[in-house]
């Protein structure tokens, strides 16, 4: 009987826990993967903070969390409130928003690539309506590339956040809303003082999902820009990948991975604490 738990646990231990520990210890080495590895202490971490590309990636990751996370949260909540009740047509609207989540991020990237390319849909449309001066090499210009990628990522995330919020809203007691309505609360007051406080735990879940998703974001950037042009869309995840598998600086890349882990840890711990408290309640 113990084998039922032990075998899966061991599989995860070999495939996840052990590599994670190795990842941490690799970050204290200088190693190109072929020659001998030399221990360098915390040098990799010290170097990171004078590495302009790392600092750009760090800044872009912060922008990503704020814009991608923030807009997904607000827009996802908005459409969830709009489409929460069962009425005619609502199923189609929800499916429209939700469908992109079944596509891979690579598919998403290719779809939006056709949109943002120099002779892509967006520029064609701008030309057609006489806004030629607005046309732009959206993905090839350091000042717009990151935002173009975020738009594509949002298209896929908002429907997901909507599903989480609709599930949360459905679990609320409608009598409370009704009581507030009878007491003369306006729609805005009901949202802000009745719905939002009741959604507190859902909000926390959505926020942690969004932060973890932001820190993990890799595919869409890699597929659209590979982190370029001039590292303007570089995230910590893409920089880690190209450092590891492009430049073969394995120790340095591991240090970047550990930084991502450290940034995620607060969220992971709060998620686990919640999971634990639920487990105890039941």
């Amino acid at each position, binding site marked *: *009987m113990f084998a*039922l*738990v032990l*075998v*899966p*646990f061991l*599989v995860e231990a*070999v*495939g*996840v826990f052990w*590599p*994670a520990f*190795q*990842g*941490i210890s690799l970050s204290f080495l200088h190693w190109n993967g072929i020659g001998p590895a030399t221990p360098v202490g915390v040098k990799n971490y010290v170097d990171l903070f004078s590495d302009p590309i790392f600092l750009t990636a760090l800044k872009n990751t912060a922008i990503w969390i704020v814009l991608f996370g923030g807009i997904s949260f607000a827009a996802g909540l908005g459409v969830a409130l*709009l489409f929460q009740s069962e*009425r005619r*047509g609502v199923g*189609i*609207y929800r499916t*429209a*928003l939700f*469908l992109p*989540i*079944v*596509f891979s*991020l*690579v*598919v998403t990237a*290719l*779809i*939006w*690539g*056709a949109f943002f390319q120099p*002779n892509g*849909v967006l520029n*064609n449309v701008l030309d057609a309506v006489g806004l030629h001066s607005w046309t732009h090499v959206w993905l090839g210009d350091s000042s717009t590339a990151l935002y173009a990628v975020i738009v594509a990522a949002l*298209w896929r995330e908002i429907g997901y956040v909507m*599903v989480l919020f*609709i599930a949360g809203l459905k*679990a609320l007691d409608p009598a409370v809303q009704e009581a507030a309505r009878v007491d003369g609360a306006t729609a805005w007051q009901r949202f802000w003082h009745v719905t939002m406080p009741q959604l507190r735990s*859902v909000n926390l879940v959505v926020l942690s999902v969004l932060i973890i998703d932001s*820190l*993990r974001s*890799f*595919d869409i950037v890699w*597929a659209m820009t590979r982190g370029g042009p001039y590292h303007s869309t570089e995230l910590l995840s893409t920089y*880690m*990948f190209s450092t*590891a*598998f492009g430049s073969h600086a394995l120790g340095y*890349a591991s240090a970047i*991975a*550990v930084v991502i*882990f450290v940034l*995620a840890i607060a969220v992971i711990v709060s998620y686990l604490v919640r*999971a*634990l408290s639920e*487990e105890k309640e*039941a």
Partner: protein
Amino acid sequence: MTATAAQTRTAGARPVTAVRRRSRRRTAATVGFHTTGILISLAWFAPILVVVVTSFRTFDDISANGIASLPHTFTLGTYAQAWNQGGLFQALVNSMIVTVPTVILTLLFSAAAAFGLSRYKVPFRRTILLMMLAGNLLPVQMLLIPVARLTQQLNVYDTLGALVAVQVAFGIGFYTFVLYGFMRTIPHELQEAATLDGASTTRIFLQVILPLTRPALAALGALSFTWVFNDLLWSITLLQTSEKLPITAAVLSLQGEYVSSWSVIAAATVVAAVPSTIVFLLFQRSFIGGLALGSVK
């Protein structure tokens, strides 16, 4: 409608206008709701539509009229090109070779672990459960280099089997957590009855608990199919031979080869999106339920 009419008839003159005003306001709200709904849906469908339409247009049509114009041609040649020269058929086969075993093995391991943890007094039960969940929350980047190295040491680097093993190991934590929550709600009496009848642990698991867990397994199966099928990072980390790439990675490298052939890339994009879309449409309800189940409890 008839109810309103009946009410107004009995209620007299003044309420009639009030009711009318209210129903007019309600009509306005309905129109507003559907206008918003349709606009949002169109905005969300439009990019998909453009790609699907583009995939059926010829190269000359697109270069002459632009990608945003209405199609002037219809061809399936783009699909033939992507399918044959682009190697998409092989890529789809690779994807299935990876995805199907990964989904089955992950669910099997997770269901076994969840069964043990939820139905028996396993020591350190809570610690084990949380550790397993924590493993799934780790940023994947931490694991890439050590796992790539491990597969090289075990001589399985650049094999589809390694891809399966890694994704099974990484998925187990999350699925165990969700299935644990589900199995805990199954009444103990069922199990006790089976035990009294002399059923072994394995039989209880396979014939009592597992059938009752079917809804959760369906939801997780549909979810995990799309997740594994859509993966890019592990494939480009662990595979080198281009003939071995699953479709997600293959389509991306195709993009490099056919930079200017929009329609071929569009056709490849459609091919890569079809399998997970089918799974979604077949399991729509459990799929959405699954997403909500994992995160909102």
